[in-house]
């Protein structure tokens, strides 16, 4: 399957990927301003920028073939789609126990405690028909979406 990969030599640590991840998961998918002003609570970014100058890179769910989070999930909310390969959390069934955070070796799952507690993670922008928003909007092509 296609995944997002970082090219850390091109990453400038601008965090534009985080901004567009928030927008893509808001109710205002094409409007940064509205996403940041009108939506409350605002979705968390599902991408993490790690930084230790001069190195930086963005990291999100690897959508593992044998995804440890899906095997560890106590409710069955975290599932890997057998066709697309996308690992996603059915938030309605998630109780925020954080066993997936324990299981994920990439540290790619975040706690969303703004409403009901749920695990928040990259869904490869499965709702959209274009490349993931982080890849599309990276100003220096430091993120690529490809098969490896």
């Amino acid at each position, binding site marked *: 399957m296609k*995944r997002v*990969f*970082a090219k*850390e030599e091109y990453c400038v640590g601008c965090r534009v990927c985080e901004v567009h991840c928030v927008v893509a998961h808001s109710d205002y998918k094409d409007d940064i301003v509205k996403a940041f002003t009108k939506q409350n609570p605002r979705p968390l970014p599902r991408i*993490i920028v*790690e*930084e*230790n100058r001069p*190195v*930086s*890179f963005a*990291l999100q*769910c*690897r*959508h*593992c*073939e*044998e*995804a*440890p989070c899906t*095997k*560890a999930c*106590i*409710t*069955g909310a975290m599932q890997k789609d057998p066709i697309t390969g996308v690992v996603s959390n059915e938030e*309605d*069934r998630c*109780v*925020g*126990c*954080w*066993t*997936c*955070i*324990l*299981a*994920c*070796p*990439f*540290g790619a*799952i*975040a*706690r969303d*405690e703004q409403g009901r*507690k749920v695990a928040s993670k990259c869904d490869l922008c499965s709702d959209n028909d274009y490349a993931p928003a982080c890849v599309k909007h990276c100003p220096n092509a430091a993120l690529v979406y490809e098969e*490896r």
Partner: protein
Amino acid sequence: MRKMKYVIVGNSAAAIGAVEGIRKSDKESPITLISDEPYHTYSRPLISYYLAGKVSQEKMYYRKPDFYSQNGVEAILGVKAEKLNTAERIVTLADGRSIEYDKLLISTGGRPFVPPGLDVNKLNTFSFIKLDDVKAIEKLAKPGSKTVIIGAGLIGLKAAEGLAKLGVDITVVELANRVLSAILDEEAAAFVQQQLEEHQVKFELNTTVDQVLGNEQVTGVTLKNGKQLDCDFLIVAIGVVPNTELVKDTDVRVNRGIVVDDSMATNVSGVYAAGDVSEGYDLIYKTQRVLPILPNAYQQGENAGENMAGAEKAYKGGFAMNAIGFFDYPMITAGIIKPEGDDFEILVDSDSEGKSYKKIVLKNNTVVGFIYLNKVDRAGIVRGLIREEADVSKFKAELLKDDFGYINMSSEERAAKLLKGGRSA
């Protein structure tokens, strides 16, 4: 492929893992799943959420309602598998039916441990493992009613949290000197105890129940420390032991649990075991151990299923790990958290104002355990380092930092882990 008759006894994480493991390669052969509980597969850890009213019974399903039909599983629910004849490969059910198998998985889980001498036969005495336990408890759990919970482990404290939210007056009795003694050291346990006490849960530590009072019905307990506690109901949550009843009087080897190899096979041909009933490999202690935790149960079950269907796939082993929280105070722990001996190096970052605590235990520059209280984000990275037995000497100084991550590893290490995507995580 010749059709196999698969039989699975149990209906929780290991059993479901086995169905999914079998179906990775064998889409055709019939699977019969037998459980003494009458319910569609549900998440056992959710019973405390159910009790507190946070999750309805309809939302407790561990897999979707069409799981059995989608996976070609004949589920025999509400009927106990009573006898196993390994020579003829037959499981006999309580209703007299005989089920033949080519490959059998025993995933019967755990049963409550009751110490000798403790009277658990009076009315209103419960364990806290299954849905039926909480369905009985909820009838008595009214604001102002009183309960005593024996055991301050994961189960006892989750019961306490659920009941506290219902306004029940709770005292937890624990033989150890602290709460959660299996997963927390003294300092961490003090933080967690304080959190629970702030929500009106009371504790009696370093003692245990001497006598259960009442005639037919529990009215209270006396403790070894001389105190007496009144209660309307009693919850016994001292621990679970492997539920090995089905293999009694068979040749299946049992130590503490049913002993399995790295393919989850027992010593008897065609018989596998997985989950809380089994005793598999612990890759931190490097020995066979019972590991009664859900992620291990699922993975063992999945591995058993794959091997039952003919794959030759070794399970590397598991280790103790838990993510749990009480009243929005989260913690994640894994492995050896209170080592004994000189071979260990301990890193600690404790912040009593922020109520956070991080402890990492190292041996020969590999991580063998950790406790994260309150600051639990990205704990899985460290769990991954345990699993890989990675040498952490180059970034040891960074391990405790809140922003510890792949940035602290060398670019080669990082590339090796990240650039291959999720192919072998």
